């Protein structure tokens, strides 16, 4: 009886309007999350039968399937245009596709790097990869969210999995400490973020980004404290996630303490997803209020650029240095976002330059952290910058790869890093923010110092170092060698055909750089000290191929980023 009444009343009100679902829009997420859950289920049922190889291979397959789905989305968007689905909560446009491609590739690369890491540290089980895939799903969701609630859910799916991953190596005290710091500050920032959503909801009556934009376009808002407070809190929440100064305090500690492959994943994916959502929320729905938020972004960009570059100079730990360098990079992306606040074409250029920067940074960061991970040795602890002295002799391939990636981060020509910096600075100049562009270039010059310092250290003979420091380095070297040689189980270059082919290919790629060093494939006699896993070499190779390849031939990627415009560009 009661049920009948309920149905009657429901039909009286016209029932539930079922939202239309275009599954293609969420296909990469479905593949990634479904694959992760399937892998977890299989691993739970037949735990003993799964070894690291099986898990890595299945993770790769899932990530590549997700990447393929994203490419399918790309062609769909090219032919049918952008659209929203799921009651306008999710949007499929060039912007979301690029973020999805970026996240899926980062996931695949992390699986490659993580394989060697898990073997070295003796971490069994599927949790590492499953959590990373769940995290990647959240990042993809943030890229295509068209509703503040979806942004929040994506943010939390991304972050909660990352908290666990940061604590993954329970044998290291630093790992747990990093996770706790990340968790406390991450939880704090998401609470601020939710409160920002609540205030925005109160001021506009909706959480949908399109409807917020409509509301703001139709209603002239005069001195609305509630909306501005909401906007500010949202910005603070985002600034925490993307590590913009002054909300960057957690970054060095967390980057240093987390397992190194996860640090690479974190720096690339969390930053990209955070910036993607930040750009979409601020440009497409708060575009009307640009007069209010542009100055804040301007100020954030200035301090982020300067603090990131200056503090990186004084670091002695390579992971902390890269953490500050990632803060510096965040400043450059903010430069693009500041330009994105401008109207019309200039704004569109700002969006595409920021995305281009994120894309370039993803591969540079994952590649750099992959090398750091390999050189970290068992226990993932040998991260003193002084350990890199003379690396050019000991590990010519890794040293050269690291040099290329660092030079790219510094913005050397013929790398994506150069084009990325050029684009954001050009976008800032177009948006009439010339002082900001000048500050960015100064910061890039300062940043070049600490990148070059590491490069020089890797190729320096001993006389470059002062006596006292030299002694210290000597000791460190000796201990490092001792540890490494006991842990070296298989020779680095065992001469498998695949590896040699890869090295040749890399040499071919790298020679485009016309670097003065002659590249030799080292043989086993040259007592190598670190156990270099093949898959990590593959990952590093891909990162370098992308960084240098798109650096020499920038047109395709620039075109891709150019097509990645927002659906609701004002």
């Amino acid at each position: 009886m009661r049920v009948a009444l309920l149905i009657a009343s429901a039909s009286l009100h016209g029932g539930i309007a079922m939202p239309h679902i275009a599954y293609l829009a969420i296909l990469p997420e479905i593949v990634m999350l479904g694959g992760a859950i399937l892998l977890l289920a299989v691993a739970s049922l037949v735990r003993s039968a799964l070894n690291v190889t099986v898990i890595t291979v299945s993770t790769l397959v899932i990530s590549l399937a997700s990447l393929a789905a994203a490419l399918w989305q790309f062609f769909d968007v090219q032919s049918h245009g952008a659209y929203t689905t799921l009651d306008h909560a999710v949007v499929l446009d060039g912007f979301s596709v690029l973020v999805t491609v970026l996240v899926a590739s980062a996931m695949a690369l992390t699986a490659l790097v993580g394989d060697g890491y898990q073997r070295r540290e003796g971490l069994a089980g599927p949790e590492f990869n499953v959590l990373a895939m769940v995290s990647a799903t959240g990042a993809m969701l943030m890229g295509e969210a068209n509703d503040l609630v979806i942004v929040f859910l994506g943010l939390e799916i991304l972050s909660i999995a990352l908290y666990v991953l940061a604590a993954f190596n329970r044998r290291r005290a630093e790992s747990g400490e990093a996770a706790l710091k990340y968790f406390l500050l991450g939880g704090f920032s998401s609470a601020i973020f939710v409160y920002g959503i609540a205030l925005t909801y109160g001021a506009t009556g909706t959480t949908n980004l399109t409807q917020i934009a409509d509301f703001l376009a139709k209603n002239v808002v005069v001195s609305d404290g509630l909306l501005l407070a909401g906007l500010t809190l949202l910005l603070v929440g985002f600034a925490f996630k993307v590590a913009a100064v002054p909300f960057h305090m957690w970054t060095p500690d967390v980057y240093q303490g987390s397992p190194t492959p996860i640090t690479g994943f974190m720096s690339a994916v969390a930053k990209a997803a955070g910036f993607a959502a930040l750009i979409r929320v601020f440009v497409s729905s708060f575009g009307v209020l640009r007069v209010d938020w542009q100055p804040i972004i301007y100020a954030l960009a200035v301090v982020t650029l300067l603090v990131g570059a200056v503090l990186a100079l004084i670091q002695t730990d390579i992971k902390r240095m890269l953490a500050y360098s990632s803060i510096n990079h965040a400043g450059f992306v903010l430069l693009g976002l500041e330009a994105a606040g401008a109207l019309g074409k200039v704004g569109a250029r700002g969006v595409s330059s920021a995305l281009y920067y994120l894309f370039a940074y993803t591969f540079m960061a994952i590649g750099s952290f992959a090398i750091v991970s390999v050189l970290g040795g068992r226990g993932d602890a040998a991260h003193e910058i002084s350990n890199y002295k003379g690396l050019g002799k000991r590990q010519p391939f890794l040293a050269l790869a690291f040099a290329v990636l660092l030079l790219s981060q510094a913005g050397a020509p013929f790398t994506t890093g150069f084009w990325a910096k050029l684009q954001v600075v050009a976008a800032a100049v177009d948006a009439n923010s010339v002082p900001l562009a000048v500050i960015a270039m100064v910061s890039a010059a300062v940043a070049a110092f600490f990148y070059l310092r590491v490069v020089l250290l890797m190729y320096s003979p001993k006389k470059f170092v002062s006596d006292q420091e030299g002694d210290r380095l000597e000791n460190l070297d000796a201990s490092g060698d001792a540890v490494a040689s006991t842990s070296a189980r298989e020779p680095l270059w065992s001469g498998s055909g695949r590896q040699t082919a890869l090295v040749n290919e890399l040499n071919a790629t790298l020679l485009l750089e016309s670097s003065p060093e002659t590249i030799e494939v080292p043989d086993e006699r040259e007592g190598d000290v670190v156990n270099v896993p093949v898959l990590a070499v593959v990952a590093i190779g891909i990162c370098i191929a992308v960084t240098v390849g798109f650096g020499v031939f920038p047109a395709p990627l620039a075109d891709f980023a150019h097509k990645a415009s927002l659906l609701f560009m004002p």
Partner: protein
Amino acid sequence: MSLSGGWYLTLAAVLFGIGAVGVLVRRNVLVMFMCIELMLNAANLTFVTFSRMLGDIGGQVVVFFVLVVAAAEVVVGLGIVVAIFRRSTSTVADDLHVLKG
């Protein structure tokens, strides 16, 4: 007698403020957790109040999601705390100083 929405919003704002200051000044990890929960629930209260004031059910649906996310966050946080403090013996955040900064 019914209170106007403004009171609930005020209460939520005060709770949020207390939670935020608590996270910043307290040094016990568990208390910091509780303060984060306080902030999230202040946001929930704001959502429900606005939902009622605007006559829009959407705000109450958001609360479901925030609740679940908060629970997941607490579980992960407690898991990390348990994992860490099986090594050391206190729950004071300042005792963590392996990482400088």
